[in-house]
């Protein structure tokens, strides 16, 4: 009874929340827009080094966001592998012996790799970029993983950690390189914007794929644990 009442109450609250939110959106939509940001953006596109505006925003105008965002991803990866067990990769139970999947795998994996490469390359002037490519790459990895292909580099060893850190480090180095020239943090040296962005995107693709894959495989089968503080054990 109390449970039902609670559910009702929460449902009502959520409906009210949606209604208020909708009303707010309606009111804001009724206001004449203030945004001159996209205009400003197109004026500055020529200086950004890429043709695609979303990529320009992500990797040049608001690159600090992206830098921190990769940081978030790496954190998730770290937290993930901190809980994994080294031998989980050989766990035969986790292999799928589905013939369909096996067939899929043979045809799909090369296809997906090509797709990932295309997405990465496309990012400069049309939709696509590091995230999409990284995600596709990760998906490929997941497929391979489900197919039981052992991936040595996913063991929580130095190699994995290097992989996690690679994209982020390159980005960070690119960010700090301009400081030596007396410029602001994250400012690309003049003329270097395009190649730098391209390099960053490629390593980011690898790193993103790596992190997502690592998170996918870090199965929680680590039995060792810390005692709680103060536990006499």
């Amino acid at each position, binding site marked *: 009874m109390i449970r039902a009442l609670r559910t009702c109450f929460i*449902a009502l609250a959520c409906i009210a929340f*949606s209604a208020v939110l909708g009303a707010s*959106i309606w009111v804001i939509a009724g206001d004449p*827009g203030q945004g001159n940001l996209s205009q400003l953006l197109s004026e500055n596109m020529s200086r950004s080094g890429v043709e695609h505006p979303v990529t*320009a925003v992500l990797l040049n105008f608001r690159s600090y966001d992206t830098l921190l965002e990769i940081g978030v991803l790496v954190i*998730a990866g770290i937290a993930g592998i901190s809980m994994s067990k080294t031998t989980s990769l050989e766990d035969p139970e986790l292999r799928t012996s589905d013939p369909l999947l096996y067939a899929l795998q043979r045809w799909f994996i090369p296809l997906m790799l090509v797709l990932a490469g295309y997405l990465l390359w496309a990012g400069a002037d049309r939709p696509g970029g590091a995230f999409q490519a990284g995600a596709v790459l990760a998906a490929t990895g997941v497929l391979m993983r489900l197919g039981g292909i052992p991936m040595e580099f996913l063991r929580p060893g130095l190699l994995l950690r290097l992989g996690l850190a690679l994209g982020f480090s390159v980005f960070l180095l690119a960010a700090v390189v301009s400081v030596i020239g007396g410029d602001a943090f994250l400012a690309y040296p003049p003329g270097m914007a395009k190649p730098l962005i391209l390099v960053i995107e490629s390593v980011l693709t690898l790193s993103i794929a790596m992190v*997502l894959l690592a998170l996918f495989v870090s199965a*929680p089968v680590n039995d060792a644990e810390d005692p709680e503080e103060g536990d006499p054990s």
Partner: protein
Amino acid sequence: MTPSLLYAMAGAVLCGIGLFGLLRLSHLLRKLLAFNIMGSGVFLIMVGLPQHHVGPDPVPQALVLTGIVVAIAATALAVVLIRRYYHQSGMASLEGEADSREGGPL
């Protein structure tokens, strides 16, 4: 009324649905689904609302891309935590805690 605004409104409803799920459902994976749904709602508002005025706007689109990556990172971390938690306690929800005097929706 433009399609953008329609999607923004849909986003508002998705936020409501997601919030309900986060508060009411007890199974942790369901909470995670709810979080993702609510996130999608927020992203819809984020893109739909400005585009109502000015048409396609790359800035919020870039923000949403960032947001999606953050969301997947959080989701992945949560899945790892939940699986490990399940492995150790045999439970997939936060309720039924013995030592907490104040169990609650969050």
